[in-house]
């Protein structure tokens, strides 16, 4: 009898014949990996949906946090692949190839976004040209171009390239930490950002320079300055810096009068400045990626100037005008650019007079400067913003040139809005025209910016590029000291924030909290809000045409689209996975397939399981993978039903143990039906009907049930999670095979389809296999349906015997749904 029994089992089972005996540890592991896989499935699907939303939106969004999430998704999907292979005994190894292929393509895009170039670690400044931006950053590449092609002097110097930067970041595993920052701001606000930045800052400052990078700095110094001990300026030169749409004015770090022993330290300082709160906010506001912070560092010999400053080849308020604007200060000009010093300003034309204050610059010097500005403009084919110095011998040296940031042609706000309001203050210089209104918020220190409320009017003593942190939410900016040529003014224009600088007495008049309206073009500040009650200004949308945005599109195409839609199609295979979403879909499908055979692996392992002492015609062996049974030791390997604490198992048992199942009653077996059962399965002496379908396995945890009945007229599996979180709850039911003739099997499938569809399952039936699923329902619904499935499991045992010609599947389906279980017995 035993031999027949195992032969039957083999014939009826859809599982591999080699019975694999798993220990309880292995069961638990497999179960947990399956659970983790499902959780990751939900997380990645959510991410794909988010990504699609972000791509469709026109709001400013953080490319970096998207990249961060994409990378997370790619790791999550890898873990799903890993888990599937772990629960399926390595059956899906080709998925690793698909994973590697897609993640390789993603990595290539990430690398391109990081903006680093391959090349030497150090390059002399004079060898650089404008096309070297990816290697030397914009500032130094342009300066090399000035020296080589414009017949203007630049300081001697060398550049430590983005290739060196990439080495530094990778060797110290700094990239991932840095790329997290944008996400921090988005998720937790400016205060958290400051803390996160400080942490990253410390990590960068503590990171050792790779040996060859340190050697490159020493070599560059030696070869450029010929062994002479000179003072140098160490300047940032980021890849995305100095573009017309993204000046990065004053955001990165520069250091003057650096001594030879400080070169390496300042390298780290400059790199760290790419990850300051200001720099991160700037990129976020401009839709740039951390990749555009790929940082080359310039080492330029210090100029000891008689005078130095900034000049614009066109008037910043009117790029079509013929006027050149020159700002100068005695000595080094850092203060002018930073906005903390006013300096003297001249405005004039090449052919005419320059008007301005003071005698620091002679008329012929002004003309020379203006001519140089126009030479640069002609060469770079755009109005230029130029940093310059005149040394003691009267030589003109260009320190930096970049495209000017034009004042936005259209800045929302209308002068008429301020009509009828009392003038509080008048004067100052226009940094960015426009009208903005709101409560005064005085910023004395950078820390004050962290708690800056949306819609406030920022009032400060000095203008500062650090104001950038609040430019996306402030209504206007007013400072007592500052220049329209300074960094903050440039940034205000880029961001379209109405701003007045050099407004005497602003701090005394504009008290904290007072409602004011700033009309920057008219250089007036009024008491109260404008007639329409609001002023405001337009927020700039992220430019959709930047290389970063295009790259994001390519990245998205490797992540979100789903090509694998039909599990029955031949294309539903690892080789056809083209996106992370495809892999997710494939893994999810196969994971359930594997779990439908979870019970098979229980095999004949009696050591780690208990026999359930239940009044049922089938024997159930229970494997507990966590909290499925009340904690106790059970004698003789048997547990009572009362010890089952698994919520889904209890529900399922309730249905099976429904007293209306009159399976004990002797019932005449129709000879016709019985023979048909045997006809297709075995020849030989008929076994006892009760012994067919004897062994079932239940793998349970407190909220999980995997129940399989494999030896019987059919093979069915119920896999369910039933907890408090609706989104995680599901029931998957699979039914297949079995003895009996084709007609009867088809009827059985019809019966199940009718019943399960009426119970709100989604049902797919193909041939003799039926899949039904119920996803994301409340615990009570799942419990009720599991109880139904328990009843179905009992009733369906009877069906082959019952369904002869005049008993239709519809009849039994109606009977079942009407609760007339007795009709089956």
């Amino acid at each position, binding site marked *: 009898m035993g031999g027949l029994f195992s032969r039957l089992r083999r014939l009826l089972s859809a599982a591999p014949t080699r019975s694999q005996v798993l220990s309880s540890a292995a069961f638990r592991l497999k179960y947990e990996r399956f659970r983790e896989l499902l959780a990751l499935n939900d997380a990645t699907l959510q991410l794909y949906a988010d990504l699609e939303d972000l791509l469709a939106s026109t709001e400013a969004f953080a490319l970096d946090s998207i990249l961060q999430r994409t990378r997370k998704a790619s790791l999550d999907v890898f873990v799903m692949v*890993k888990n599937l292979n772990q629960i399926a005994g390595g059956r899906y190894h080709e998925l690793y190839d698909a994973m590697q292929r897609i*993640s390789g393509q993603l990595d290539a895009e990430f690398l391109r976004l990081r903006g680093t170039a391959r090349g030497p670690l150090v390059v002399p400044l004079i060898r650089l040209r404008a096309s070297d931006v990816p290697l030397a950053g914009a500032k130094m590449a342009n300066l090399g171009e000035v020296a080589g092609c414009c017949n203007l002097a630049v300081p001697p110097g060398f550049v430590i390239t983005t290739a060196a930067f990439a080495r530094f970041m990778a060797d110290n595993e700094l990239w991932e930490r840095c790329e997290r920052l944008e996400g921090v701001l988005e998720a937790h606000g400016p205060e958290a950002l400051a803390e996160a930045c400080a942490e990253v800052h410390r990590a960068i400052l503590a990171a050792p320079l790779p040996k060859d990078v340190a050697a490159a700095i020493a070599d560059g110094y030696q070869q450029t300055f010929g062994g002479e001990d000179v003072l140098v300026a160490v300047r940032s030169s980021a890849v995305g810096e100095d573009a017309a749409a993204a000046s990065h004015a004053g955001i990165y770090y520069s250091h003057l009068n650096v001594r030879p022993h400080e070169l390496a330290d300042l390298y780290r300082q400059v790199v760290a400045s790419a990850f300051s709160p200001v720099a991160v906010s700037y990129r976020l506001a401009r839709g740039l990626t951390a990749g555009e912070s790929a940082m080359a560092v310039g080492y330029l010999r210090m100029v000891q100037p008689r005078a130095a400053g900034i000049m614009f080849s066109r008037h910043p308020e009117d790029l079509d005008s013929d006027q050149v604007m020159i700002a100068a200060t005695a000595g080094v000009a850092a203060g002018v650019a930073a906005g903390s010093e006013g300096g003297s300003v001249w405005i004039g034309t090449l052919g005419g007079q320059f008007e301005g204050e003071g005698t620091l610059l002679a008329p012929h010097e002004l003309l020379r400067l203006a001519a140089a500005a126009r030479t640069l403009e002609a060469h770079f084919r755009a109005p230029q913003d130029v940093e310059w110095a005149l040394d003691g011998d009267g030589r003109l040296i260009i320190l930096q040139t970049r495209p000017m940031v034009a004042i936005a042609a259209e800045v929302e706000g209308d002068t008429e809005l301020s009509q009828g309001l009392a003038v509080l203050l008048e004067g100052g210089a226009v940094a960015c025209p426009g009208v903005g209104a709101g409560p005064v918020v005085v910023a004395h220190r950078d820390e004050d910016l962290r708690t800056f409320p949306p819609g406030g009017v920022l009032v400060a003593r000095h203008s500062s590029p650090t104001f950038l942190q609040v430019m996306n939410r402030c209504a206007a900016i007013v400072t007592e000291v500052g220049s329209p040529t300074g960094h903050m003014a440039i940034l205000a224009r880029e961001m379209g924030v109405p701003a007045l600088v050099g407004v005497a007495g602003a701090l005394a008049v504009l008290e904290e909290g007072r409602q004011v309206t700033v009309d920057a073009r008219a250089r007036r500040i009024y008491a109260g809000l404008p007639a329409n009650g609001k002023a405001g200004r337009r927020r700039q949308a992220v430019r959709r045409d930047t290389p970063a945005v295009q790259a994001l599109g390519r990245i998205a195409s490797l992540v979100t689209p789903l090509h694998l839609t039909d599990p029955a199609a031949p294309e539903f295979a690892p080789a056809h996975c083209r996106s992370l979403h495809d892999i997710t879909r494939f893994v999810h499908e196969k994971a359930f397939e594997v779990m439908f055979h979870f019970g098979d692996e229980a095999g004949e392992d009696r050591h780690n399981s208990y026999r359930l002492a239940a009044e049922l015609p089938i024997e159930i062996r229970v494997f507990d993978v966590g909290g499925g049974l009340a904690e106790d030791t059970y004698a003789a390997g048997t547990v009572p039903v009362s010890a089952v604490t698994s919520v889904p198992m209890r529900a399922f048992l309730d249905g099976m143990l429904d007293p209306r199942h009159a399976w004990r009653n002797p019932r005449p077996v129709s000879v016709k039906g019985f023979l048909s059962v045997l006809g297709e399965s075995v020849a030989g002496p008929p076994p006892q009907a009760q012994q067919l379908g004897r062994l079932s396995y239940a793998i349970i945890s407190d909220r999980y049930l995997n129940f399989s009945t494999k030896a019987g007229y059919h093979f069915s599996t119920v896999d369910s999670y039933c907890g408090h979180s609706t989104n995680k709850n599901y029931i998957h039911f699979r039914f297949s095979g079995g003895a009996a003739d084709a007609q009867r099997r088809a009827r059985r499938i019809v019966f199940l389809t009718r019943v399960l569809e009426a119970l709100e399952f989604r049902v797919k039936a193909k041939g003799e296999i039926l899949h039904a699923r119920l996803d994301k329902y409340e615990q009570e619904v799942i419990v009720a349906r599991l109880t139904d499935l328990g009843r179905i499991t009992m009733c369906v045992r009877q069906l082959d015997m019952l369904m002869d010609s005049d008993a239709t599947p519809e009849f039994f389906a109606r009977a079942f749904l009407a609760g007339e279980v007795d009709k089956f017995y």
Partner: protein
Amino acid sequence: MSELKLLLVDDEVEFLEPTAARLARRGIQCRAVASGDEALRALGEEAFHCAVVDVKMPGMDGLELLRRITRDYASVPVILLTGHASVELGVKGMELGAFEYLLKPVEFDLLLDTIRRAAALRST
């Protein structure tokens, strides 16, 4: 289960020593070494239930060590640890037969659990 013997391989001493100490307190006998070569020597000297191996090490890296262990000491399951979340490393590690791939910083309880699992599976 009798006392569990673990081989812990990581060049990062700041991780190695405290982790070994904590594992020892949880009843795991831990031999901590700082390189792949030392690890192979240890494997030649005594039997282990499980090895925890950092991927990034100077000299012989974790993947190479994994390759040697699966070749010469096939009964010792290897748990890979990495500070650099990389799909590529993960795929390579799993294809080479790692038991598990964990990201640093790893929660101590998760590490402990994984070690126990690996050892339990080995002993069946």
